[in-house]
């Protein structure tokens, strides 16, 4: 599978170009901590500008950084989940550059001795093939502040700075150049988001910048092992933008190479509004970050016992959970993938599945009504007033035929509002069911006469139309009848009509 179809599939414009796409990602993951990586300032989002800063994160003289232990544990969890080796000793380094949003004049990062090395993740390639993507390293670093250029209160000749983000903890994860298409890159990012959510270390929200991704991209003659000249793409703040930006850059490089041109090594900024990437305006001189060991922070020594302790506390990870759903609940791969996509949804499903026999019915409701309700409310499924325990009661009545689908949906909608047990509503709906056969027969006949074409086809042998009529009838009764009774009546009517015709 290795990239053979990457050009033709992801890039219709490149069908004739015999190039293989080579992509490596650098991902920044903002960690969910209370305080910053090296000081006790809050990382709460949305605070007043420059209200969460102190001498340490402002880089004032004499201030000393102290590492937040939760950052270390978060890094270790991600390293374990991606099969990385946690290095017994890692070292902080200063990455020196001048920019106004970096008051220290250097970023505290890690360089030649990162926290963890040599892991991997799987992506789905074309035709559902699974490909291993190597992870080169995971390291810890602090974030820079925020520059504000384009606001009404910013004057023509100035840039404003909010330094609250200075010192917010980040993990940087760097892959080897193993990705072979924009779709694989987007899939990698989605899986990484899923993973950090499972691990509970980051919200993984790309739009809000909790997950940021830069891509190195180059083309090379298909079948070659060398690497072409690469460009770096920045500012892709959604999965869709990752895919679009990479496709754009592949097309650009491909056209240039096909015309005999040369790729210039440069950094490009993706402009989502215009759908194109353009070179960043930067100075001619190459960067020279002059990394050196951070003298204010001692080397980080990691004990084997601590790693083993964390390993024991690791949650079940997405792929294992998906496989278990297929095995244990007999669910189709599609259902298992969707239900385990988000750990909250998976937890909701499991609480429901523990109380109900028909796992597929439970799956259908979670994938349908439950996820729709949480999307509409912009909340987690676990925050819905309709708890999995209440839904189990409801679905039990549904599967035993006490209430119909439509009634169940009504009760579900009520439960979302009032948070009450559905028992009473089930009694009400069940009590409201029409059991009077004569009354039901009238409705059945009415449905047949008002759909003469379908009735003819049905009598002519199109048996599937029985389902259509059941639906029509239940609709007109707002679900207040047992579908099995209606089915039986339909068959009686059919027999009578056919006999009448001889």
């Amino acid at each position, binding site marked *: 599978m290795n990239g053979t179809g990457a050009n033709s599939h992801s890039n219709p414009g490149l069908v004739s170009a015999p190039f293989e796409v080579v992509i490596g990602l650098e991902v920044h993951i903002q960690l969910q901590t209370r305080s910053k990586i090296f000081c006790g300032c*809050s990382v709460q989002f949305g605070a007043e500008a420059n209200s969460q800063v102190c001498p340490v994160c402002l880089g004032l003289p004499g201030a000393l950084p*102290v590492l937040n232990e939760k950052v270390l544990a978060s890094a270790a969890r991600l390293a374990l989940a991606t099969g990385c080796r946690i290095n017994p000793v890692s070292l902080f380094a200063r990455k020196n550059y001048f920019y106004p949003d970096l008051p220290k004049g250097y970023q505290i990062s890690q360089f030649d001795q990162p926290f963890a090395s040599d892991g991997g993740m799987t992506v789905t390639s074309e035709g559902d093939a699974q490909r291993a993507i190597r992870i080169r390293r995971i390291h810890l670093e602090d974030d820079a502040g925020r520059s504000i*250029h384009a606001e009404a209160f910013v004057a023509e*000749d100035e840039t404003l700075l909010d330094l609250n983000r200075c010192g917010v903890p980040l993990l940087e994860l760097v892959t080897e150049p193993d990705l072979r298409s924009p779709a694989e890159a987007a899939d990698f990012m989605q899986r990484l988001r899923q993973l950090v959510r499972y691990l509970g270390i980051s919200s993984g929200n790309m739009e809000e910048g909790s997950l940021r991704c830069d891509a190195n991209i180059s083309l090379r003659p298909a079948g070659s092992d060398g690497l072409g000249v690469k460009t770096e793409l920045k*500012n892709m703040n959604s999965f869709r933008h990752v895919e679009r930006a990479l496709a754009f850059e592949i097309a650009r490089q491909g056209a240039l190479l096909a015309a005999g041109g040369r790729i210039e090594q440069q950094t490009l900024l993706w402009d989502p509004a215009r759908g194109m990437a353009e070179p960043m*305006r*930067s100075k001619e001189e190459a960067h020279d970050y002059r990394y050196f060991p951070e003298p204010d*922070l*001692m080397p980080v020594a990691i004990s084997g016992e601590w790693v083993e302790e964390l390993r024991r506390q690791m949650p079940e990870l997405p792929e294992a959970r998906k496989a278990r759903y297929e095995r244990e609940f007999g669910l189709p791969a599609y259902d298992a993938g969707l239900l385990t996509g988000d750990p909250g949804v998976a937890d909701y499903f499991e609480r429901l599945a523990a109380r109900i026999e028909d796992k597929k019915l439970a799956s259908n409701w979670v994938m349908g009504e439950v996820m729709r309700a949480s999307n509409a409310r912009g909340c987690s499924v676990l925050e819905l007033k309709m708890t999995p325990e209440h839904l189990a009661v409801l679905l039990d009545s549904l599967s035993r035929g006490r209430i119909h689908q439509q009634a169940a949906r009504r009760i579900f909608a009520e439960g979302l509002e009032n948070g009450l047990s559905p028992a009473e509503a089930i009694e009400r709906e069940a009590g409201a069911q029409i059991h009077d056969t004569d009354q039901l027969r009238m409705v059945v006949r009415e449905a047949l006469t008002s759909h003469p074409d379908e009735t003819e086809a049905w009598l002519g042998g199109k048996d599937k139309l029985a389902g259509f009529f059941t639906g029509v009838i239940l609709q007109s009764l707002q679900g207040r009848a047992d579908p099995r009774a209606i089915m039986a009546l339909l068959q009686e009517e059919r027999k009578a009509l056919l006999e009448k015709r001889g």
Partner: protein
Amino acid sequence: MKVTTAEVERIAGLAKLAFSQAEKEQFTAEFNRMLDYVGKLDELDLEGVEPATHPLHSDAPLREDVVTPSLSREEALGNAPAAHDGFFSVPKVIGGEEG
């Protein structure tokens, strides 16, 4: 390796500092003297000796993930040459972020 004036100019550029020709020559000589001094270590056989990055042997102290009070906004902005609306104000920055 000898440090040249060109090297001093590059380092000064990275540090955003400007020097006169006389100063550059003075620094060139001083840089070389420092390197010669440290170069004394090359006389030792350091095969198998790990580089020491810190003078102490101890593990990094860690802090609990607990929020402690920040500076007040007034204090934070107090030394800024220019500030308004709660922000630091700097001469307009053109181009994207580095780093």
